[in-house]
């Protein structure tokens, strides 16, 4: 692995050149928050963001995605991958993307996800500002961020650029990079290590301890009690970088002969998510109460997926905690309580 350095003004030129020649996506401001959006000039890029509203998976797995257009029984794929560079992804989101990569690759490969994912170059960046609900320093610490192509760390005077894949190396042509010296590499390591200690929220136990205890807490009263204030609005699901459930619907155009099959992000907190047809118009819900749906989400994140992913399906971004209007979604709060039961 090569490690390069570029100074502040060189970095500005680098971004400017990327904008001219590639589809560049990165964190941009939206009102008092941030989102991943198109970068049209250097000033759009907000590497000082704390967290984005939606996670970066939306760039290859859009919240609402047309999958195919149909005419009678014939269909034609709508997936039309367009190469893009995703710049400025925090390490917790890199971990999450690595998880959804695995989940969409296993069993039946999901072409609709993978086609767009594979033409995306991911360049991470260090966390300059820590979101007040983040807890990435204490969750799944045994899981390494991987699957990205390069990583930028802001240090005094410029950026250290780790080149991980050929996709990142190819970008060097757009900037005045030099080999990073030992001191610069050390500074970058220090920056990335220190940020792990800056979260105000913290899990008190290891992933293995949590996995075991949470799984054994299926009958705890905490689920129904916490979920008394749940709106079943699925906001915690929608903003989660590791949630990957989706719903598929067909709609006809007005001509009633052609139409479109589209998928959209689904969420297990929604009441209709667990409704199944029993035929003859009757419906059964296998997670009928708010508490059972709330429990399911925490179980998925803290235990069910552990074996498959090598750690929890939670990266500590804090998005669910901050979007929950009644503030019950925070995994730190509920897991720490369970650990003390």
């Amino acid at each position: 692995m090569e490690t390069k350095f570029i100074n502040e003004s060189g970095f500005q030129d680098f971004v400017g050149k990327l904008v001219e020649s590639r589809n560049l996506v990165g964190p941009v401001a939206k009102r008092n928050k941030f989102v991943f959006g198109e970068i049209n000039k250097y000033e759009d890029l907000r590497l000082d963001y704390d967290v984005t509203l939606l996670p970066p998976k939306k760039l290859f797995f859009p919240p609402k995605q047309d999958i195919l257009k149909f005419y009678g029984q014939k269909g034609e794929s709508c997936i039309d991958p367009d190469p893009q560079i995703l710049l400025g992804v925090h390490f917790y989101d890199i971990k999450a993307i690595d998880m959804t990569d695995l989940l969409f690759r296993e069993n039946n490969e999901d072409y609709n996800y993978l086609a767009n994912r594979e033409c995306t170059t991911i360049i991470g960046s260090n966390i300059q500002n820590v979101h007040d609900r983040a807890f990435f320093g204490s969750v799944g610490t045994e899981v390494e961020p991987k699957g990205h192509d390069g990583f930028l760390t802001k240090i005094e005077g410029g950026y250290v650029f780790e080149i991980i894949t050929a996709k990142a190396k190819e970008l060097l042509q757009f900037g005045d990079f030099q080999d990073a010296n030992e001191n610069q590499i050390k500074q970058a390591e220090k920056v990335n290590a220190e940020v792990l200690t800056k979260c105000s929220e913290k899990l008190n136990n290891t992933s293995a301890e949590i996995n075991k205890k949470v799984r054994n807490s299926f009958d705890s009263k905490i689920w129904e009690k916490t979920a008394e204030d749940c709106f079943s609005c699925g906001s915690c699901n929608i903003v989660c970088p590791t949630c990957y459930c989706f719903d598929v619907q067909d709609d006809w155009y007005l001509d009633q002969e052609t139409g479109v099959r589209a998928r959209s992000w689904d969420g297990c907190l929604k009441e209709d998510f667990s409704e199944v047809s029993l035929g003859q118009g009757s419906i059964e819900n296998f997670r009928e109460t708010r508490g059972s749906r709330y429990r399911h989400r925490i179980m998925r994140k803290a235990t069910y997926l552990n074996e498959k992913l090598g750690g929890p399906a939670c990266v500590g971004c804090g998005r669910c905690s901050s979007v929950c209007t009644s503030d019950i979604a925070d995994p730190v709060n509920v897991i720490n309580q369970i650990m003390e039961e």
Partner: protein
Amino acid sequence: MEGKPKVKVAYFDFACCEGCQIEMTNFGGPAFLELLNHVEIVEFREAMTETTDETIDIAFIEGSFTREADRKRLESIRERANIVIAYGACACTGGINALKNHQNDYKEAVYGKDADMPHLDSQLALPVSAAIKVDYEVNGCPMNKDEFARIVSHLLHGKTPVIPKYPVCVECKLSENVCLYELGGHCLGMVAKAGCGAPCPAQGIPCEACRGFASNPNEKTLEKVLKDRAGFSEERAKTKSRMFTANCRYDAPLKDKE
């Protein structure tokens, strides 16, 4: 679908502003005319003079049921129609008409000296479903014409239309809007029935739940959030959601009879 007989549809209106019918005619141009290749409109007061006493495949009903005298007309529509679709907030939930259900002086306030004229007499404003069985609903104030077209096309294909039960928050998050509570405001998106695509919060306008409530709305926690996060008074937090959901709330006049 060529060669199939056209589906006979008719539009009826009760207590409403007829805005949803206007929205229907707003389809305009080739889009709506294309749908007309598949349906035959046999009655539509806003757009044609003919009426019908025949059997109807789909009856669309707008407006709330607010006069006992209207029950017969509703029953006659139900008898003649294979499918009844209530459309617009007034027909689906009683709409803003139902605000009068909690007031006694509305007639004097609106009609002044004419308040006692017999044709102005009305009772509780209720959804159409309070008088007859309704098969599907197209919610909203006004109803969304794209959703209307989607539901009709699903029925034309013999498919059960999928109508969300979940709250507007879902669609707001999918659109990556900044939550109005994060901007110091308030919103009813957590209890409001989705399906609209959250156009109001996207423009910074609080959701008023014009589509009625989502399934099992958490009204108690709504009051709590309105007080704690939006700084509402106890009284305002309690009544806030009433504009479009007077017949859906825990204190709805017919709640006990359901």
